[in-house]
């Protein structure tokens, strides 16, 4: 994968269509709106599943741009990247291509919580994503603004049930029709920018027909509930103006570990990697924040802020008197900029400069002033609106700056989505990414991939597929979103996963690649074959280890260094011995070369497997129980308020509000009693026996072919 030569960027720009009339067809299976992390994964996944897919982006330059931090992965997020890759997604391989500083976080804390992470070269990442999309069969890229989302009127028999029919672009008269539409428009919904006392509420600067039209459809016509969230980005610092000798050097790992299961090495040679730097805030930083509070309306307007600290302002206000970490991260191989992770701020630009200069290493630092306009488009993967605002702000300041700023935006409450990320009240409409209230590239990409898979399956009349929280972090992410909703930007932590010791980064391929090929259809057969080989070899190796059952004295003779405890087990097996802290598979293989040497390439995975296996066995029963619960679907059209079963009013209201899609999700709701669950189950079971009403929206031929495929009321 890494050996291929990327086509020059220019060819991508030429090959994408800039006018809808140039698009070969006026009908697609799936249309993806937005070219960020969610949009690109969604488009690629839909095309892999087999759908004719159209990706519409306002600015083709910005497809695959890293709008905020130049890094991928981390603790929890790295697990997501591994899983996306296991499902044949793009971002893992893009990370291997663009990474310039690889490290495994949490190296000393156990393989289950290792966090693969990389600093990225923005340019290379964008190149890779664009080239990847270009070479994906069945995928067309189009530059344009979506003016309207086309939906049917609600069926009179089923009030509130709409169906997507396509989109209409600005300045085009002909609509483009599609069975599924995926919206991955990030912070566009009523987004407004904050810097100092300046704000630009949506719609006031210039006209933004696209976002206004979409917002209107989502809120007014489809009646979706929204909430408001905020995010921010730090100013970019000119590298040469920073005194790096005053900062702590953080070198990358000496062996760069790739994200992708397909790659054995990264594009960037280990010795060519760039370091990161660590500095700390000083009391001076706190002083500047406090002095400038009256100039900072983003912070003043903080109503129901998140529990964590998204900006330097909230850090020093909530944890005063401490010093906080500031990471200085490279932006690219040839970039002369540093990204100060931890210094997201929204004060006026002159105060921002004062603030960063309070940090010793940055006492003479300059905020980046981009020389030419296109760079801004590249860096700011935002809407027209925000770019215009930025231009206005820069104009008033008299020069091109890249200061930090805050964004407030609306998100669609994700409890209105099904586990397939489809809007429950609108068939064929899928949402993914920041629009669902998440933060982070990896979270967006994971949702994009899963929405893409299901949008394609919907369009191709295949039943929806779900990922369980027992088998993947993606499942945890989606289940948390659709069954609990969000009150602050949702970010993945390993502590959210109940079965963390099973959902490890090392085994993501075994958990997902096989299923991705056999059940989901989003994995290429090349990757599948590879995963099958890995699975079989691991099974053989584990069987070989298990059959190495020897008495302690023989073990001691063969491997004199191991601390054998006499009492523990009469005849310890190779698996038992490999669990020991200071026994590696390599040493074991050298003692038993005849049966273990064929598996040397999996030595690390085998060691991890041996350590975690006893715990996985313990968890298996609990996992099976949850999976059974998740397989029992609840019909989405139950009228809980008038259901003729014995349920308390309180329980009815909870069920009516959340509309859990499975009985498993229902049990996890606060306030649902076991008795309520039994009554509900009895009801479902009885109605399931009777003939359920025929399928509702029979408008085209394909749906007739699989009448039961989308009827979610029955367990499969």
């Amino acid at each position, binding site marked *: 994968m890494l050996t291929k030569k990327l086509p020059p960027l220019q060819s991508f720009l030429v090959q994408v269509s800039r006018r809808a009339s140039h698009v070969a067809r006026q009908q697609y299976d799936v249309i993806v709106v937005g070219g960020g992390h969610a949009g690109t994964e969604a488009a690629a996944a839909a095309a892999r599943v087999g759908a004719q897919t159209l990706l519409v982006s306002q600015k083709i330059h910005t497809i695959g741009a890293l709008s905020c931090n130049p890094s991928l992965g*981390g*603790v*929890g997020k790295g697990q997501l990247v591994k899983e996306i890759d296991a499902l044949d997604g793009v971002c893992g391989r893009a990370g291997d291509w663009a990474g310039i500083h690889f490290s495994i976080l*949490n190296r*000393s*804390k*156990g*393989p*289950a*919580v290792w*966090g693969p992470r990389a600093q990225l070269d923005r340019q290379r990442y964008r190149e890779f994503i664009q080239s990847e999309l270009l070479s994906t069969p069945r995928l067309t890229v189009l530059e344009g603004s979506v003016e309207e989302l086309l939906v049917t009127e609600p069926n009179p028999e089923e009030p509130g049930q709409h169906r997507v029919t396509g989109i209409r672009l600005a300045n085009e008269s002909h609509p483009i029709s599609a069975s599924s539409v995926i919206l991955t428009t990030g912070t566009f919904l009523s987004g407004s920018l904050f810097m100092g006392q300046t704000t630009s509420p949506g719609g006031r600067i210039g006209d933004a027909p696209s976002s206004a039209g979409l917002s209107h459809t989502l809120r007014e016509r489809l009646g979706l509930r929204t909430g408001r969230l905020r*995010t*921010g980005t730090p100013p970019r610092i000119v590298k040469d103006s920073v005194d790096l000798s005053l900062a702590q050097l953080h070198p990358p790992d000496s062996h760069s570990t790739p994200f992708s299961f397909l790659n054995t090495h990264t594009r960037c040679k280990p010795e060519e990697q760039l370091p990161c730097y660590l500095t*700390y805030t000083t009391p001076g930083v706190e002083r500047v924040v406090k002095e400038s509070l009256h100039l900072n309306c983003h912070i003043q307007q903080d109503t129901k802020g998140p*529990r*964590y*600290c*998204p*900006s330097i302002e909230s*850090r020093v206000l909530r*944890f005063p008197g*401490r*010093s*906080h*970490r500031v*990471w200085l991260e490279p932006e690219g191989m040839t970039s002369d900029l540093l990204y100060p*992770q*931890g210094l*997201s701020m929204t004060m006026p630009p002159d105060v921002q400069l004062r603030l960063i200069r309070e940090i010793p290493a940055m006492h003479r630092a300059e905020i980046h002033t981009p020389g030419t306009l296109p760079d801004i488009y590249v860096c700011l993967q935002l809407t027209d609106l925000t770019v215009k605002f930025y231009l206005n702000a820069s104009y008033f300041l008299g020069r091109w700056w890249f200061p930090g700023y805050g964004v407030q935006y609306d998100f669609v409450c994700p409890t209105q989505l099904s586990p397939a990320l489809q809007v429950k009240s609108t068939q064929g409409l899928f949402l993914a990414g920041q629009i669902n209230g998440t*933060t982070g590239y990896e979270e967006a990409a994971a949702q994009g991939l899963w929405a893409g898979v299901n949008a394609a399956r919907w369009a191709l009349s295949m039943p929806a597929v779900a990922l369980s929280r027992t088998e993947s972090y993606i499942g945890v992410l989606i289940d948390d979103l659709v069954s609990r909703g969000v009150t602050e930007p949702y*970010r993945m*932590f*390993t*502590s959210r996963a*109940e079965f*963390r*010791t099973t959902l490890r980064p090392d085994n993501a391929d075994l958990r997902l690649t096989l299923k991705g090929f056999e059940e989901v259809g989003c994995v290429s057969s090349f990757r599948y074959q590879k995963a099958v080989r890995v699975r079989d070899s691991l099974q053989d190796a584990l069987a070989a280890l298990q059959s190495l059952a020897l008495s302690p004295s023989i073990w001691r003779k063969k491997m004199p260094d191991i601390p054998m405890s006499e009492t523990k087990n009469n005849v310890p097996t190779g698996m038992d011995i490999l669990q020991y*802290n200071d026994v590696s598979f390599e040493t074991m293989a050298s003692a038993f070369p005849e049966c273990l040497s064929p598996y040397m390439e999996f030595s690390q995975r085998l060691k991890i497997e041996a*350590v*975690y296996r006893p*715990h996985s066995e313990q968890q298996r029963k609990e996992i099976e*129980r949850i999976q*059974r*619960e998740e397989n*029992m679907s609840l019909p989405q059209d139950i009228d809980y308020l008038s259901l003729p079963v*014995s349920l*308390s009013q309180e329980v009815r209201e909870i069920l009516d509000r959340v509309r859990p899609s499975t009985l498993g999700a229902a*049990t996890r709701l606060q306030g649902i*009693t*076991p*008795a*309520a*669950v*039994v009554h509900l*189950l*009895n009801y479902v*079971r009885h109605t*399931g*026996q009777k003939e359920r009403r025929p399928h509702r929206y029979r408008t085209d031929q394909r749906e007739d072919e699989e009448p039961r495929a989308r009827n979610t009321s029955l*367990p499969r």
Partner: protein
Amino acid sequence: MLPSVYHGVWRAAVHTLRTRGTPPCRLLSTAPLADAETIFALSSGHGRCGVAVVRTSGPASATALKHMAGLTRNLPPPRTALLRSITHPQSKEVLDRGLVLWFPAPHSFTGEDCVEFHIHGGPAVITAVLQALGSVAGMRPADAGEFTRRAFQAGKLGLTEVEGLGDLIHAETEAQRRQALRQMSGELGRLYQDWSHRLKRCLAHVEAFIDFSEDELIEDGVLNQVDSSVCDLQAEMERHLKDERRGERLRSGVQVVIAGATNAGKSSLLNTLCQRPAAIVSPIAGTTRDVVETALDIGGFPILLSDTAGLRDSPDLVEREGVRRARERVEQADLTLVVVDCAHLSSDAQQAAAFIQGHLTSVLPTQEQPESVFPTDRFLLVLNKSDLLPEEQKQKLDRELRCVSGLPPVCLISCHTNEGLQDFLTVLHSSVKTLCGDPLSGAPTLTQARHRAHLQQCFAALAQYQRYRDMDMALAAEGVRLALTSLGRITGRVGAEEILDIIFKDFCIGK
């Protein structure tokens, strides 16, 4: 709500759906979904009784039977009573001499291997046998309704019985909730809550160390603090588990609480019932300010009678606390005697009934019965001071109130003249008798056994933290998670969000 309660429901649910469209009877009598866990519980009622029945269900039943009935080789013939000495499986101490019965699968109530121990009915014997069963590997105390659910799962129950399952679970979890409340408000409850609180912080700090220490400034000392906390907790739990008295003697018996407005004659009723001036009686409203407890024997059943402060809004701090305690007692009670001064009742029966209805609602605990159905079996209405009414009105009231539906049983008495007292005692006796038939009411031994099992799991899980502390933080954290889950079965479930709350409060975590 105990999370484990759900498990059984779900297993039952799975089975129901799998057998959809076919009669659910005896389809899966071999129970392929059978639990590896074996459950046990006291199946007979509480109260003074000659014989108590303890039942087990699950694969370890046979082992338990062999170990405890001294059967080294063969199991007894199925469904045949056998007189044996019942011994503790580890200490070999003889606990009792009684009958044992062996019901191999599938011909048993639950369709699994079952054993019944018929032992003597004293609380000491029951406790000893339950604890002995708990020490057998793979055995744990049954959750509410779990025997019934397993029977359901094995297709041993018909459709109508299945319909009633939800109500049964509700009733049983409700009884458990009352029981837990009772214990949680005491010393023991405070101890468990304190442990839970400390464990939560430990887990939050371990999770913060795992999720954030690479990017954020998490102080190096965090784990050391967790280490010492875990050590302390282990030591405290070990001491607690060894201490046979377990810190507090649980109150045994059916909990009966006297409640009502001030000056209705509640303390007089207590004194009348226990035939001694246990509580101060005066014509001044608000005389009783604290809970006055006295143990009684009603028709052979042990009851614990509590007199409480009259319910009213008072500016007096002491009285307000008294009223709060009174409400707490009503919430934990198995049976509440609502005392009403009948001089306050209108001579019109309709109006009187409405007054009583309103009065009852004010006595009811706030979070009672979502369906707003009045739980008549948990209340008795006592109309006191009947001597102040003219004879004619008395009879009319008595007659007409009996006809009003939705009211609990009504007794018209006078604590002054003892008029109507015999009738009242008969009604009280039958209510207590009904309650004692329910093995969950007033049976602290069962909850004790359950708590003990969960505490032992918690203790063992903390050892996992110690074992992996320097090898693998993920596995060490798993130990703390398990410990908190086990303790949470007593003190209430702890979700991931609660842990994140603590993390974000204690540490500065960025975007």
